[in-house]
């Protein structure tokens, strides 16, 4: 970022690209050229800023002005006003939803104020397709230090002292994992980066890979040096074409600079990295299944032990870490283990990236210190619940996690507290639900996911989850019975206790946590045949208030199944067993005569 006075950073993450941020880049460049400012200002397509709700986002540096919802048509105005005259384009500034005032400086926005960006430190700052920009922000300096100043054991010790725990979900201490792999004797060892981010609603790994691919390569090399491996493999979902492209570019540039390959930095250390693609199987996020998939086999998990550290890819010791875990490694070496250990809670150090989604105002990607409370995340960073509705629950940990409620809002978030609350950290998905969400349906949604994604190897997951799903479906159809709850609880417990892999062992969590926290909702479905959130179609009951009905026949004409009867100018009525609860009549009625409960 040397010679230009002004930098226009345009978010080039998947979310903003879907809202045509690439066209914004083009028209900004065209406007600069037209204004003769090509030498003054530079347009940079960066990784994700995190504030996906408001995309496409353009950030003007050095004054940190944050424009939201920018269209290609706005480019000329930004150039003419801001770049040329130094005046902010007020109408594109972010408006604080609480104070209704425009905020220009990103640092002052509620969304960013409480964030601490460690893993995401470069996302939104650098052009991810340019290795020089990474190097300019101390990229590969950690690798250089480790290779020249540390023995493998000493470097592992730094990671251990930092307290870093695996960000893929389990929270296993990273340094310990490296130490075990380091201790194995073998002809060849492998470093694997698990980029098979599959939790629905989670996209932190994708953002890191899209916004800062070199940090992952650097970390994998450090890991390779520590455990004695010379091969790295990145297992990435085929659904992430942009991330794949940026990794390919990054690997090519690193090789060209001599940072990947033989005799790196003249230290005699060899390391190279290849990509392996997933093909649409959630279970491949489990490390033994991931390894089998990389070997060209069905992604079926295997019993541990043996652990990958003993016998992994092609039977060799293999260290598997996830993207976010790796993203923390270079900083730990640059700023020190003590600095990292100074962030976060007692047993969970550092920060965690979360993907905030659902019924929340500020949907996006955030990074916060461990130990922050759910309330801070949802109401300060997330800006509260959409449309002023009431908060009901937040689901963390994806299909393996559980739903937390109002009473958990002030719980500090870390690996252990979430587990204790009946959920888990997972990879960092955080879906917020409001009063309109039916918790039975949510549990059903997650079970449907698990049933779809079960590999079918072990009986409890293959059949048990199917049966759990079927009971939940039955309850949402209003056919639930009293013993269903007992049956589900026992079945869930047994599945947790007996399933082969992490997917199966955690799959009943959405059921158990909703049973614990929202039992009354289940009971309402079963005993009162009512869905308190009004979501379960089969439990909806449409009826006409005779005193309000004018007999206009509009509703009867709109009914596809002829369930509404009545003479013209007489009050109509709905034949319940014919009604398919499509809601068409309600939309047609001008007199609010049709009610639903």
């Amino acid at each position, binding site marked *: 970022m040397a010679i230009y006075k002004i930098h226009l950073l345009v978010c080039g993450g*998947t*979310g903003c*690209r*879907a*809202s045509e941020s690439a066209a914004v880049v083009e028209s900004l460049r065209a406007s600069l050229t037209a204004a003769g400012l090509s030498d003054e200002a530079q347009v940079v397509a960066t990784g994700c800023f995190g*504030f*996906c*709700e408001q*995309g496409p986002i353009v950030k003007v540096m050095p004054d940190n002005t944050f424009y939201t919802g920018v269209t290609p048509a706005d480019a000329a105005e930004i150039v003419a006003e801001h770049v040329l005259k130094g005046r902010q384009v007020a109408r594109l500034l972010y408006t604080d939803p609480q104070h209704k005032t425009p905020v220009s400086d990103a640092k002052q926005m509620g969304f960013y104020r409480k964030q601490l960006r460690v893993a995401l430190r470069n996302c939104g700052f650098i052009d991810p397709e340019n290795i020089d920009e990474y190097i300019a922000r101390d990229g590969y300096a950690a690798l250089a230090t480790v290779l020249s100043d540390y023995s493998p054991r000493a470097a592992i010790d730094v990671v251990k002292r930092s307290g870093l725990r695996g960000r893929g979900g389990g929270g296993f201490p990273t340094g310990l994992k490296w130490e075990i792999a380091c201790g194995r004797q073998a002809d060849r060892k492998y470093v694997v980066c698990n980029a098979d*981010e*599959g*939790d*629905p*609603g*989670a*996209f932190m790994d*994708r*953002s890191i890979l899209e916004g800062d691919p070199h940090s992952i390569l650097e970390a994998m090399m450090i890991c390779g040096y520590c455990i004695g491996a010379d091969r790295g493999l990145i297992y990435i979902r*085929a*659904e*992430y*074409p942009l991330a794949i492209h940026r990794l390919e570019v990054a690997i090519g540039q690193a090789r060209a600079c001599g940072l990947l390959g033989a005799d790196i930095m003249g230290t005699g250390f060899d390391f190279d990295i290849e990509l*392996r*693609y*997933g*093909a*649409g*199987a*959630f279970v491949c996020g489990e490390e033994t299944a991931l390894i089998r*998939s*990389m*070997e*060209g*086999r*069905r*992604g079926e998990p295997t019993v541990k032990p043996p652990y990958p550290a003993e016998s992994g890819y*092609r039977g060799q010791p293999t260290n598997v870490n996830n993207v976010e875990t790796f993203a923390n490694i270079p900083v730990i070496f640059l700023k020190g283990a003590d600095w990292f250990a100074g962030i976060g809670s007692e047993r969970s150090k550092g920060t965690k990236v979360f*993907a905030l*989604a*659902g*019924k929340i105002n500020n*949907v*996006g990607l955030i990074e916060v210190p461990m130990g922050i409370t759910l309330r801070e995340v949802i109401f300060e960073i997330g800006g509260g619940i959409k449309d002023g509705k009431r908060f009901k629950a937040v*689901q963390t940990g*994806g299909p393996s996690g559980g739903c937390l409620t109002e009473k958990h809002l002030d719980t500090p978030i870390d690996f252990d507290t979430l587990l204790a609350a009946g959920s888990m950290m997972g990879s960092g*998905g955080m*879906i917020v*639900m409001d009063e309109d*969400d039916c918790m039975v349906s*949510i549990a059903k*949604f*997650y079970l449907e*996911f698990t049933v779809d*994604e079960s*590999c079918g190897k072990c009986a409890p997951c293959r059949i048990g989850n199917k049966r759990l799903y079927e009971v939940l479906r039955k309850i949402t159809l209003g056919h639930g019975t009293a013993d269903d709850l007992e049956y589900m609880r026992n079945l869930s417990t047994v599945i947790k206790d007996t399933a082969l892999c992490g997917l199966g062992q955690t799959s009943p969590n959405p059921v158990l946590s909703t049973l614990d926290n929202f039992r009354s909702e289940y009971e309402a479905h079963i005993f009162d045949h009512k869905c308190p959130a009004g979501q379960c179609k089969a439990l909806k009951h449409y009826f006409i208030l005779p005193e309000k009905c004018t007999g206009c026949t509009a509703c009867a004409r709109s009914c596809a199944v002829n369930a509404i009867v009545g003479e013209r100018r007489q009050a109509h009525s709905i034949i319940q067993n014919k009604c398919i609860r499509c809601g068409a009549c309600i939309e047609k009625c001008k007199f609010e005569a049709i009610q639903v409960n």
Partner: protein
Amino acid sequence: MDSVNYNEREAPAGSSNGAGAGLKACQVQAIKNICQSFHNDEGELINILHKTQEAFGYLPPEVQAVVAGELRIPAAKVYGIVTFYTFFTMQPKGKYPISVCLGTACYVRGSEKIVEALKKELDIDIGGITPDGKFSIDSLRCVGACGLAPVMLIGDRVHGRVDALHIKDILAQYP
């Protein structure tokens, strides 16, 4: 890689026994070239199937059988892989394949309604293809554009904040 026009097939895809039956010599060669570019390594089977599907659009039995023959592995094994991973398909896709995201973020923001609207508008089911071969509908789990929920993909293009009422207009953009 050269794209192979699969419509050049000479015989219907009925018989599955003879590998390459119903394929033109150049198509068989194209598959072999893909296998060889991965050194006929069985461990690269998934990458090979990705490339083959890229070239052919889908993976019918005769194509899988050629891959199996070239890698010297049982066809049953290839089929076992193809049916395990949802990314692989044995059905041809439309000219404009539609994928609706059914991830959690999209689900809570109403992606099911989009599926219903699409099904109604195109008169096909999930996994189906319109008779003119123009559109096919599939679902997928999270493209990671949760900020734009609900989301659907048509080809490579992401349509965000989709409203079920506007499905018709969106489809009209595809000639």
